[in-house]
């Protein structure tokens, strides 16, 4: 037995030592980016979240496919991509629909050298309108966007009339009238080319007989499923793509993806091509990422969000070997109110809560100095914020910490009674006389002998478990002396995030108790995409609200109209009108205060010190920024 043990130990030791030198050389090679990601690679590399929406998979897709006709620039604004698009014309039709005619540049090729033509842009759109896509499990809704798409989806047409193949390098798409005008309408033509042969297999072709474009051949789920599945998960030299990098390997066992430069890449919208030869993406563990970075397991760590982690990263940078960049989050963390029942239905109460919380102190404590306070539904990384920063500073109510001001607001709003209906005195919870409609079925209501209904200033707060924001909020607001002194009680109810969402959505399908308005306050966070679109989020339509829109349940006609007009009432080139709506929307929102913004983080990315030219921003991610980088001599 001793011999066996000795042999085993010796083998392990020898094996370990024999590869030490080999491994270290590979991992710390200058010129190779080893990118640590906190989101594990899922391995589904299908375009545009057709099936899954894993963040790292998306980045990999974007690294290998970026020949979009329209794209977003460093500030997140939609632009036409001149590397791909030779010409883009648009015309509004009599029925209100809008037709875009796209001519792509000749000479574009995939990574395998095959030419890219208009057919490569058109088939994914037809696919997105087809029942075949749904049958394969893809979440595509193109049939709702393109004229004739619904008929094609329903089987009433053999071609999509709103998608036309004009010649080898020209095609057109017509967008349905109810989606026009749209401020971000360039997003409707952010079409990308994909190899028909690689994705759907041999024997299929794109045709247009004058009635619209269609996929000719055996275009059925059964016929294409096998090839589609292969194309989704395949990595290697045989993967056909058109982006700055080729996905040359994905090790499923190690969950590690390796990229090399695509020599056939024509450049991004500025003609920029990559010069970093090799990129490896692997998993960074939340608990050990700092040690992984220090020991060379990876040399690039993207978008560090937590304040403590950023301070750790700064220590690592100071020790040498790394550089860093910081950028603003395009979103914010907030307290979310439901404004149709209980005390939070009253604007004065929402305002008072804002004044009872020292938000500057909160943001500073939570973000450890790496964050700031915003006063509306925006993040400091949005171009709208940057355009209107001065105006925002001058115009918005900042709800400074002011417990006396909070009390004044409550008194003026009628929160002046105790539970017996007598005048409120210190040590009691404030009550307000409310109508039966205002009282609703709020569980804490008190009905006096004379029928008067008193609503107590008790706010039921739903917070998810293990959430550091909740913990700090509990200390600084719910348990804060100033809150009790103001006659307010905030009850923290900790639950799983799933449970929280059920209450937030009032999802009766998950149980009758969820349909009952129970919690007036939630703490959540939100991020924006380059298309800042709040449409329907403030709808007054009860059916839509039941479906999950306007979860704040703030019924304000002006807010609804502004959020709709901001995107559906402005042409894409009319930035001034858009900003007028945007400012009015922000101003009204700031006054109604359906949410209290708590913090907008500053994010940090650490990279090796030999990497030059790395500049990241809210909407300018690693896959875009790395194209501009070089290796220092």
């Amino acid at each position, binding site marked *: *037995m*001793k011999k066996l*043990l000795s042999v*085993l*130990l010796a083998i*392990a030791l020898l*094996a*370990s030592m*024999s*590869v*030490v030198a*080999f*491994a270290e050389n*590979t*991992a710390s*090679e200058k010129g*190779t980016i080893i990118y640590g990601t906190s989101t*594990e690679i*899922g391995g*589904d590399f299908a375009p545009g*979240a057709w*099936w*899954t*929406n894993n963040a790292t998979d998306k980045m990999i897709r974007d690294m290998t496919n970026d020949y979009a006709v329209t794209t977003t620039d460093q500030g997140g604004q939609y632009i036409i991509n001149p590397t791909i698009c030779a010409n883009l014309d648009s015309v509004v039709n009599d029925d209100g629909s809008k037709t875009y005619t796209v001519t792509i540049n000749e000479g574009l090729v995939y990574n395998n050298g095959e030419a890219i033509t208009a057919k490569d842009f058109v088939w994914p759109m037809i696919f997105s309108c087809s029942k075949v896509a749904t049958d394969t499990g893809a*979440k595509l*809704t193109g049939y709702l966007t393109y004229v004739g798409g619904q008929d094609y989806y329903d089987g009433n047409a053999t071609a999509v009339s709103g998608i036309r193949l004009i010649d080898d390098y020209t095609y057109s798409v017509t967008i349905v009238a*109810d*989606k026009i005008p749209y401020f971000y309408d360039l997003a409707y033509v952010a079409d990308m080319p994909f190899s028909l042969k690689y994705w759907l297999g041999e024997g299929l072709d794109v045709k247009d007989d004058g009635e619209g474009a269609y996929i000719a051949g055996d275009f059925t789920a059964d016929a294409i499923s096998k090839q589609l599945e292969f194309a989704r998960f395949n990595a290697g030299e045989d993967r056909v793509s058109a982006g700055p990098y080729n996905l040359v390997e994905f090790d*499923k*066992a*190690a*969950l*590690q993806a390796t990229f090399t430069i695509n020599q056939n890449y024509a450049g991004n919208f500025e003609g920029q091509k990559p010069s970093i030869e*090799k990129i*490896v993406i*692997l*998993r*960074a*563990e939340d*608990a*050990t990422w700092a*040690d*992984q970075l220090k*020991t060379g*397991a*990876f040399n690039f760590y993207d978008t560090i969000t937590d304040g403590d982690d950023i301070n750790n990263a700064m220590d690592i940078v100071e020790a040498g070997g790394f550089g860093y960049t910081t950028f603003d989050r395009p979103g914010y963390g907030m307290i979310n109110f439901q404004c149709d029942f209980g005390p939070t239905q009253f604007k004065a109460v929402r305002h008072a809560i804002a004044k009872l919380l020292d938000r500057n102190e909160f943001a500073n404590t939570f973000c450890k100095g790496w964050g700031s306070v915003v006063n509306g539904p925006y993040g400091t990384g949005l171009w709208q914020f940057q355009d209107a920063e001065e105006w925002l500073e001058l115009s918005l109510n900042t709800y400074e910490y002011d417990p006396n001001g909070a009390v004044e607001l409550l008194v003026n709003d009628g929160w002046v009674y105790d539970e017996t209906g007598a005048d409120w005195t210190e040590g009691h919870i404030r009550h307000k006389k409310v109508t039966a409609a205002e009282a609703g079925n709020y569980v804490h209501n008190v009905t006096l002998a004379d029928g008067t209904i008193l609503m107590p200033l008790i706010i039921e707060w739903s917070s998810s478990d293990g959430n550091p924001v909740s913990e700090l909020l509990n200390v600084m607001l719910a348990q804060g002396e100033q809150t009790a002194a103001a006659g307010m009680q905030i009850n923290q109810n900790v639950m799983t995030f*799933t449970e929280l969402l*059920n209450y937030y959505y009032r*999802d009766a399908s*998950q*149980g009758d108790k969820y349909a009952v308005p129970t919690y007036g306050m939630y703490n959540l966070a939100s991020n924006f*995409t380059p298309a800042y*679109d709040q449409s*329907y989020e403030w*709808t007054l*339509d009860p059916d*839509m609200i039941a*479906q*999950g*829109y306007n979860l704040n349940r703030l019924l304000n006609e002006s807010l609804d109209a502004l959020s709709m007009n901001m995107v559906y009432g402005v042409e894409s080139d009319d930035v001034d009108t858009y900003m007028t709506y945007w400012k009015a929307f922000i101003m009204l929102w700031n006054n109604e205060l359906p949410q209290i913004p708590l913090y907008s983080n500053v994010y940090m990315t650490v990279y090796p010190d030999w990497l030059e030219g790395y500049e990241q921003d809210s909407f300018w991610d690693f896959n875009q920024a790395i194209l501009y980088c070089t290796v220092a001599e």
Partner: protein
Amino acid sequence: MGKYIAKRIGYMALVFLIVSFLMYSLYNLIPTDPARAELEAQKMSLKPAEYEQMYQQLRQKMGLDDPLVVRYMRWMGLWPDVDGSGFNGLLQGNFGYSQFFKKDVVDVISAPMGNTIFINIFSTILALGITIPLGIYCAVHKGRKIDNGVQVVTMLGYSLPIYIIALIFMFFFCVHWRIFPISGTKTAGAIYATRWDEFIDMLYHITLPVIVMTFASLGGMTRYVRSAMIDALSMDYIRTARAKGLKEKVVIYSHAWRNALLPIITSIIGWFISIFSGSVIIENTFSLNGMGKLYWTGLNNLDFELVLAIQMFYTIVSLVGSLLMDISYGLVDPRVRVDK
């Protein structure tokens, strides 16, 4: 023996059905809506009517509006599929579809299972290779300094949570001395000339997790073996054997160890069965793509078909394991008749 095994397999099938129904029902008690979760990311790009249309389609496709029993039977393969295409469940070999990874569960599980088995085989062999001789040695030398020393160390290993051991070992071996890599099963970006190079690189990466797992499991088994051996060595037949003038080695290994094996065999077989199950803590700490981590990912993302498939697999492994244990009793101890 054959009749006994057949009877046990019948019982196992029944237990499997009961466990599967209980597990399925438990997961369905969790208040979540997979259709809503599926559409949440697309919500902003859809108009309300479009969202509702897709939501209802998805609920129908997922069979969410059917009663629990129907959904269970469909999952088991005892009820026709939603699209009416026939029976296509667990009994037909369909382990389900991962809503998170959007592919068949079998495809999701294969790579992590390979990693887990690879790591656990080394860990199990190493742990048993150390603990059994050490336990015997301590029992034979009971009360001596070395025995007392081992008792202290094993008690320490037994008491310390594995994540603490992992972090301590990680600090010294990876950060301080830089002997082993800190995470993963492959050197970043490595291109291997041969399969042997790949094997060696993987071995290098899993050495520290294996050492941690071995260290953490030393305490329990060493003390267990020691205790069983002390009991066996105190028996009259040992005194008789020694009185007959048998060599001490023969007394220990042929007489004492064979009798001590009976209470230990359960644990030993349990260990070998556990090579299929990953360690959530070790795999997450060392960033290893194994079954424990996959199970954790499945739970966090409410991917119940994946989690259920993993649990059903472990149920089968446990049931088979318990059968093997019972049979092994008969093999180890002739006094036990498993076919009675």
